[in-house]
């Protein structure tokens, strides 16, 4: 088991998703149980499903200095950076610590593949049109390269692309860099945008729900795909005493299957156990769990049984994908921010669209919203390839 580690301060955070642009908007949508899901109007040919599309991405070009990298994913990154005063906070952080002492670690599943798809739809004599010749439009690293250029950092930089655990794992990578002295602070987060690859890919796997996703409902029929951008600033605890904490993290691999979870949730259990050990906590200290809860039959059955086995009945647990859709590589940061909203605003979001909970669910499942004051929150993220991450967050006064 890993040793307990010092909590880090999360001195700023923001999120932009279908349910809201900025933290206040998402918190209001959560409180009002107002979903961001709507009939799919995005894919290049019609596909009957619901999506969590962010309004206005098309109208938000990237800064002129990064015009060569203009694409939907970087537009959403820029839109996301521009909320909640986050860009100013990040630039102030870089000024305070120095450009070489701030790491940028961001997660994505498909990055700017939408631009590559467009290049293939508009081939000229079998070749990319000139506007698609920029190599940085066609690499998974387009996201972190863009954000690093916007912020002007000169420290460690990487894109984590482990499917749906990507922007959870960035917290672990950044925490290690800070603890081992390679950075004083980090910009973490993730961005994924709607694209044909994921809509038709999940459709091919028969994992897309025709109606809005219903996590943990007995009659759930699959995911609704969403898009989102989210970011957070990590610093040592004493730099921001009143800020919420990253208390621990855990990572593991299922070693089971490329697109199905381990049937006993072995990898998930390992990640949760590691996160608890690093935070110096036991399961009964966890007040709220934001579940991965994708609404696929397999994920929710395994995750529900895992939570029921590991946590006391007093722990509250919910999936918020009924509000946001499954934002894939951005799910980690979106749900990290929802945990921070729960901790800082004193409420537990329920599980939107879950009407008749699957009998496998334990007493932990919160279906309705609950007025509570959680102090410790856990976020689960599981991805294709059996990639698991668990993050523990704490109220400033609880760590």
């Amino acid at each position, binding site marked *: 088991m890993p040793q307990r580690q010092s909590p880090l301060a999360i001195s700023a955070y923001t999120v932009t998703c279908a349910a809201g642009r900025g933290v206040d908007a998402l918190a209001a949508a959560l409180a009002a149980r107002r979903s961001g899901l709507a009939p799919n109007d995005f894919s290049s040919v019609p596909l009957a499903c619901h999506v969590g599309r962010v309004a206005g991405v098309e109208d938000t070009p990237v800064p002129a200095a990064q015009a060569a990298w203009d694409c939907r994913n970087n537009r959403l990154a820029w839109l996301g950076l521009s909320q909640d005063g986050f860009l100013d906070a990040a630039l102030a952080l870089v000024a305070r610590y120095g450009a*070489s002492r701030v790491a940028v670690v961001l997660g994505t599943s498909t990055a700017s593949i939408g631009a590559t798809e467009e290049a293939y739809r508009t081939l000229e004599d079998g070749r990319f049109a000139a506007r698609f010749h920029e190599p940085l439009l*066609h690499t998974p690293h387009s996201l972190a390269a863009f954000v*690093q250029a916007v912020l002007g950092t000169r420290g460690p*930089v990487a894109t984590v692309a482990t499917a749906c655990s990507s922007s959870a794992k960035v917290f672990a990578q950044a925490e290690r860099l800070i603890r081992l002295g390679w950075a004083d602070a980090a910009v973490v987060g993730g961005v994924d945008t709607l694209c044909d690859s994921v809509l*038709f890919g999940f459709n091919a796997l028969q994992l897309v729900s025709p109606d809005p996703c219903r996590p943990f409902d007995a009659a759930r029929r699959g995911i609704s795909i969403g898009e989102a951008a989210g970011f957070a600033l990590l610093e040592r605890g004493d730099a921001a005493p009143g800020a919420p904490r990253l208390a621990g993290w855990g990572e593991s*691999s299922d070693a089971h299957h490329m697109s199905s979870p381990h049937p006993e949730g072995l990898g998930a259990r390992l990640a949760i156990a590691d996160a608890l050990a690093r935070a110096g906590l036991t399961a009964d200290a966890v007040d709220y769990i934001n579940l991965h809860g994708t609404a696929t039959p397999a994920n929710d059955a395994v995750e529900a049984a895992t939570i029921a086995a590991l946590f006391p009945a007093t722990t509250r647990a919910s999936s918020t994908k009924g509000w946001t859709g499954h934002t894939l590589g951005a799910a980690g940061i979106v749900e990290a921010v929802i945990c921070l909203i729960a901790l800082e605003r004193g409420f537990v979001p329920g599980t939107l669209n879950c009407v008749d909970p699957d009998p496998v669910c334990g007493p932990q499942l919160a279906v309705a919203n609950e007025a509570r004051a959680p102090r410790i929150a856990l976020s689960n993220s599981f991805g294709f390839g059996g*990639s698991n991450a668990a993050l523990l967050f704490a109220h400033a006064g609880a760590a």
Partner: protein
Amino acid sequence: MSALAVRVAGIGLWGPALAGWPASVAVLRGEAPADLSTTQKPSPPLLPPAERRRAPETVLFAAQAAVEACAAAGLSPGELPAVFGSAQGDIAITDYMCATLATAPFELSPTKFHNSVHNAAVGYWTIATGCRAASTALSAWTDTVGASLLEAAIQAHDTQAPVLVAVYDSAAVGPMADPIHHDCGFAFALVVDVDDPAAPGPRLVLEPLDGAGATEPDAAWARELRERNSSAIALPLLAALAGTTERRVRVAAGPGFVLDVTVRP
């Protein structure tokens, strides 16, 4: 201070003129010619023959180098956390996905879709080796070698235990060859561990350096190979590991961010 010292417990390598580490040492030292005209197809013993035939090129290259590094370290692959890095991921699958989506999106292969994730290679690796430790898949575009090496050294110090790092890229296919100039596969892998004075193996000391340029390869063939596959940017580091004297190699790890690596073979 932040200097990270690690012991290299095992090395693996696969690419044009570089079929395995022992066979490559003389080439990297400049003592044997480098024939870049052909690349032997990797055939990692880890995968069953049927899987080997079906597996994407990146999976084969990454697993080939990773198997060799673990065997040289005398460690079971299933025990090691794995850091896999690739500038582009599997370009043949990207080409298939985008070409199919442009013409017949409802005919997309579900298997190709789940193989299209950037962590497909490390996913297959953990499944084949039974690895339940942490695994990750990174890209830092042309800085992927440095970013992956740093992450592996950081993880080794975090856990005080060995970590596998594999960096690989594949040949560009179809229209993707316009923006991405890869025309061959290449992979290398290291098992890095916290230093143990009693244990064998080369040593690396990583220190951050602001603003210096990366070390250029000495040999013309290495400069050529670097242009043909982003992961071959590792060749100056690999040449230093193959050498006989202490050297310092600067490895690009990000814009304005370079790893100053002291290599003691």
